[in-house]
């Protein structure tokens, strides 16, 4: 009932954007004689320093509360209400920016471009969830990330998908992560922000395409819980890696597992590892043979991936605005425009830079993409290799345990566990 109320409430907030359609500007747009197009807004107005500091405090508080609710209190209800808060505060109030997901691009850009000055709050939004994940698992994903929590609220009829499919689709976030880092490192674009499916809802302003994509993600999320988090989110991919080393991760049972299997299908994200029976344990010679095979295959995949990535460096670089401009000028294609000179070319001519300078700059960027292509391809090869490992290696397990990498710490499973810490002996009996 509460969940339905929450959904209705959120739908009302989202539907408020309809009012934008009736908005009338007090003054029309300025009459630019050059035909300049006002670019669509990507980021909201900068927040005041006081609010930015408040945001960091709220982030720390939210992470602490959710971690406490997950690890100590084991309260799904608490996590749910924190999700609502996260959607309202980090989503609608902060207009979703800067979010931890997108902040990894700012960090990358700051590392590769010394001219870029990164605000301390952005560093905080990037680093704090990672630190908390290192201690408590992905509690950030559980109840602090506005993108994840919004989808979580819409997970009304979650259905399980095959584990092999889950693993295969789980490669996409790593590819996305690699691409996002490559494009941020080359100062080309912030891809994650450009294709953030829910930011339009939070800002009540987005292109039709992005509203559609956001809507489709929410629709898919009704049946396949948190599709963006599981199959696209690059920050989630990063937390997936970090969470594997988490010190105090959520457990399904507070004490000893009684193998009642009640929790078996409780996870909408397929993040519960089932016990592996002793008879399924593979024999040592087979394991050694596979280890040898994998130690050959993984470096090979990295090499092949790197080589393939490098071959596509020009395609990858073609997105860069300077490379594109150089191509258009070199081929005299005028951005496909036939009736008038493209705005980009007009702007370039007006800027006074020579074509040779532009070509040199573009060549330098393409060279960066060549090395980036090697690294990206190698990284994707590594991810493929490790996925192969995870699909073929059997880990012996006696209990139902959350997968530390893919578990989003939502605490749904704990409600299914009949074991209580104070009366575990009685239950065992």
């Amino acid at each position: 009932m509460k969940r339905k109320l929450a959904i209705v409430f959120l739908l009302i907030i989202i539907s408020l954007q309809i009012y934008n359609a009736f908005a009338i500007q007090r003054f029309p747009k300025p009459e630019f004689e050059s035909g300049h197009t006002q670019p669509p807004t990507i980021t909201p107005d900068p927040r005041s320093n006081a609010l930015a500091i408040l945001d960091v405090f709220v982030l720390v508080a939210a992470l602490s509360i959710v971690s406490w609710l997950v690890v100590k209190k084991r309260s799904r209800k608490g996590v749910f209400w924190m999700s609502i808060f996260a959607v309202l505060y980090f989503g609608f109030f902060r207009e979703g920016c800067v979010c931890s997901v997108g902040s990894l691009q700012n960090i990358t850009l700051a590392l590769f471009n010394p001219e870029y000055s990164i605000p301390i709050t952005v560093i905080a939004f990037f680093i704090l969830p990672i630190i908390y994940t290192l201690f408590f698992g992905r509690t950030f994903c559980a109840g602090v990330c506005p993108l994840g929590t919004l989808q979580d609220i819409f997970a009304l009829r979650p259905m399980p998908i095959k584990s092999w499919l889950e693993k295969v689709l789980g490669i996409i976030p790593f590819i996305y992560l690699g691409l996002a880092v490559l494009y941020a490192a080359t100062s080309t674009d912030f891809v994650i922000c450009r294709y953030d499916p829910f930011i339009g809802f939070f800002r009540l302003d987005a292109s039709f395409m992005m509203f559609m994509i956001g809507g489709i993600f929410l629709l898919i999320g009704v049946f396949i819980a948190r599709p963006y988090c599981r199959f696209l989110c690059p920050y989630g991919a990063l937390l997936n890696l970090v969470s594997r080393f988490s010190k105090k991760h959520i457990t399904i049972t507070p004490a000893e597992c009684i193998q009642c299997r009640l929790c078996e299908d409780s996870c909408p994200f397929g993040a519960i590892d089932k016990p592996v029976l002793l008879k399924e344990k593979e024999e040592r010679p087979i394991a050694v043979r596979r280890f040898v095979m994998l130690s050959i295959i993984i470096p090979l995949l990295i090499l092949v991936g790197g080589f393939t990535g490098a071959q596509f460096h020009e395609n990858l670089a073609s997105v860069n605005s300077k490379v594109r401009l150089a191509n258009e000028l070199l081929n005299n294609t005028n951005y496909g425009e036939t009736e008038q000179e493209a705005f980009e070319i007009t702007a370039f001519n007006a800027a006074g830079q020579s074509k040779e300078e532009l070509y040199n700059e573009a060549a330098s960027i393409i060279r960066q993409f060549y090395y980036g292509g090697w690294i990206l391809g190698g990284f994707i090869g590594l991810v493929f290799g490790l996925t192969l490992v995870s699909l073929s290696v059997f880990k012996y397990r006696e209990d139902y345990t959350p997968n530390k990498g893919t578990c989003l710490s939502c605490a749904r499973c704990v409600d299914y566990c009949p074991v209580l810490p104070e009366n575990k002996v009685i239950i065992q009996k």
Partner: protein
Amino acid sequence: MKQKVIISISLLLLLIVIFLMGKDFFSNKNKNQNNPYEYKLDNLKHIDPKLIAYNEVKQIKPDMEDPLAIDIDHNDQFYVTGKNKVIIYNSDGNQISSFNIDSTAYAICVNNKGDILLSILDHIEIRNNEGKVKAVWEAFNKNSVITSIATTEKSVFVADAGNKIVYHYNLNGELINEIGKKDTIKGIPGFIIPSPYFDLLIGIHGKLWVVNPGRHAFENYDFEGNLISSWERTSMQIEGFSGCCNPSNIAMLSDGSFVTSEKGLERVKIHLPSGDLKSVVAGPESFVEGTKGLDLAVDSKDRIYVLDPVRKLIRIFEKK
């Protein structure tokens, strides 16, 4: 089975979305050439014919390269100026006389004595009706762009778009005071003038009315510079004024109604003293697109004279 179908469709949808995002990102089509913020005024240019209360009854082509300003004296003789020339017409529209000037005049005003005050960009020349220079009032400062002049028996008011102020002179050209400077204590908002269109007039009962174009407002000051009253109408619709700065020019009818001309949406309208729209004199279809600075004057019969600087015509409108 049903579950399998739902999952398959959902996954397919997910892959399609991811594909579309990738396609959009890597696609080489030029995303910026379709201008979502294109300044379209087509719908706003249409005016309900019932609102148009005037007919164009006469057009006069002045023998002048660039006509820019018009004024009418108490005998309904009208004076047109612009590049290097002033032409005087009688009330029937026949040219009486003309004389040459050295430069371009941007505003003209004829006082009760028949003297012609001309704005030569940053200073004022006073000539008699034969063109003889009687006085020159030097520029108040180098930024001056004088766009309008109005006179009473004792005073001359000068609208300076460059300094965003109205200067109040006596007849000898001595500065008495400045009017319209921002003063929050006195409740004076200050003039916002993004482009060189800044008009004023002395209306019925001798009141000074100044346009505050950036605020789409009309402000009424006493001669000491106190703000007496004001009204503003900001709207993309016919009822108000739109764009960065409108109206560009004004005149007043004998009943105290304002005649206004606008740029951007080229039109001439009449607003009641309260500011509400009364009627339309001429809509955008009557002017060449892009026409700016339609100077206005009104004669004793409330006929409206519009100086069209693009078609280089004096256009006379009479009530239907």
